[in-house]
C-alpha cells in the first residue's frame, strides 16, 4: 500500500480483465469481478495458457509449470497478487 492509500497491484486488475474479456473468456459477456472464480467454467485450459503467456509478456515475468496452480489463477485478484509477488514490471 502506497502513501496515497492505493494498493500497488490495483492497476494490474483492469489489464488482466481486459485481456480475459478479449481473448480468453468462453462467454465474452460473462460477469467478471476481481473475485470471480475463473476455473468454474469461465475459461478453458487453452484460454488459461494464453492468459499465462499474456501475463508473462505483459509483466515481464517467467512462470514455471509448478506456478500454474489453482491458488495462483483462481481469480483476477489472485493473478495480480502472483504478478506482484514475482516483481512483475509495472506491478
Amino acid at each position, binding site marked *: 500500500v502506497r502513501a496515497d492509500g492505493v494498493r500497488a497491484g490495483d492497476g494490474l486488475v483492469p489489464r488482466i480483465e481486459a485481456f480475459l474479456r478479449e*481473448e480468453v473468456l*468462453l*462467454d*465474452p459477456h460473462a460477469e467478471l469481478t476481481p473475485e470471480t472464480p475463473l*476455473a*468454474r*467454467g469461465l*475459461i*478453458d*485450459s*487453452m*484460454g*488459461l*495458457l*494464453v492468459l*499465462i*503467456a499474456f501475463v*508473462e*509478456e505483459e509483466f515481464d515475468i*517467467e512462470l*514455471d*509449470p*509448478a506456478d*500454474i*496452480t*489453482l*491458488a495462483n*489463477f483462481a481469480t483476477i485478484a489472485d493473478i495480480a497478487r502472483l504478478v506482484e509477488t514475482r516483481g512483475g514490471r509495472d506491478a
Partner: protein
Amino acid sequence: MPEDAFDAIVVGGGPAGATLGWFLADRGHRVLLLERDIHPRDHVGESLTPSTNVVFDRMGFLPKMEDAGFVHKPGACWTSPRAPIGRHLSLRLAEFPPPDAVQPYTYNVERDTLDALLLRHAHEKGVTVLQGVTVREVLFEGGRAVGVRARVLDGWERVLRARVIVDASGRRCLLANQLRLKRKDPWFNQFSIYSWFRDVEPNPPGFDGFLFLHFLGLERAWAWQIPLRQRTWSVGVVTERSDFTSSGRTREEFFSELVSRNGNLAHRMRKARRVRPWRVEGDYSYSAERATGPGWVLLGDALRFVDPIFSSGVDVAVYSAALAADSVHEVLAGGDEDAAFGRYERSVGDGIQLWYELTDLFYRLQNLFTRFAVSRRYREDVIRILQGNLYVPVMQERARRMLAVMRQAYEAASLDPENLLRPGALVGG
C-alpha cells in the same frame, strides 16, 4: 536385360521409394522400382512439413507441385472444444524461416496426385518403374538380401536380383514382417475415421490454406481439417480404437459425435457434404527393430510409423529416402556397408524417435504444446521442430532440449493435484 542388371531394387512407389529411386538414378545407378498398385491410388497423409520442400527442391520437383496447384499451407491453427466461434490459436511456419527455406509455406496435398507425380518424376530421372507388380518376398543367400520374388497382376512370377534391396512398401512392412522385426507399440492404439467434404465453411480471412487441428475435450483424441483443391476438405477424427469399437456406433455416427464435441468444428461442418466413402486407418504405431541389414534397407512407413499429429509421415518418407540414398550410393561405389548403413540407421532412427517422443508427450498432456507454442520464450523452438527434418544434429539437439522442458512440465503437473495443466483441472476442460 539380364536379371541382375539393376544396382538396386526398390519395393514400393510412394514418396519414400520414388525419392530414393530419384536420388540413386541421379547418381547414375540403375534402379528398378516395383509398385503393387497402379498410380494414382488413394493414401492418407495430406499435410506436409516445410522441410519436405527442401528435399523436393533438391529434386527439382517444386515446379511440379506448383503446376499441380496444391493448396499452399502457411501454418496451422488449433481450437479448443468450447471456444467461441471464430476463436483459434495459430502459428505461421515462416515466423522463423528454416535455414534452407525456399518458400514461406508448404502444401496440403491429395496424396493420389502427389504420389503419382513423384513416381513419374523418378521415372523421368531414369528409374525403371513397374506398376501392378507385387513383391512376394525378399530373397536371401547366406544371410544377405540378393533379390525379390515379384508377381505381376495375372500371377506371372519372376525372381529379380540386385546388389541392394530397398523396402519402401509402406505400412505393408514387407521385410520387417518377413524377418519378424516388426514391433507394435502397446501405448498407442489410435485410429482414425476420415473422408473428403464440400460445403465446409472456409478458413477465416488471413488463414487461407492453414491446417486446423481441433481438440475434442478427450485426452487422446483430436480432429484435422485440411483445405484441399477445388473447395474440398479432408476432415478426420483420431481417437482410441477401443472408444469406437465399444461405442456400438456406425462410422458416420461416431464421426458426427466427435465433430459435435468442438463448437468451431461443428459450426464449420454444419452444411458439409461428404464426397467420398469413409476411410478408416488403424495400426497407428509400430517400428522395425532394425533399419538395415546385409544388402537391405527400410524406409519411411516400412521402417516405422508414428501417429500423424505433427504431419511427420511424408517428412520421414523423403528424409529417410534421401539419407538412405547417400548410404546405398556409398555401398554401390564400393564403400564399407556396415559403416554406411550404420550412419543411416543412426540419423533416421534418432530422428523418428524424436517425432515419436514428441507425439508421446502430446498424447500424455495436450496442453503442453499450447503452453510452449504461445510462450515467447519457446515459440521458436516449437515452430522449428514442427518444420521437420529431425535427422540432423542441430535439430536433434533443439528437439531434445524442448522435450526435456516439456517433460519437466509434465512431471510438475503430474505431482501436484492443484496444477492447472492437468487434464480436467478446469471445469469444462
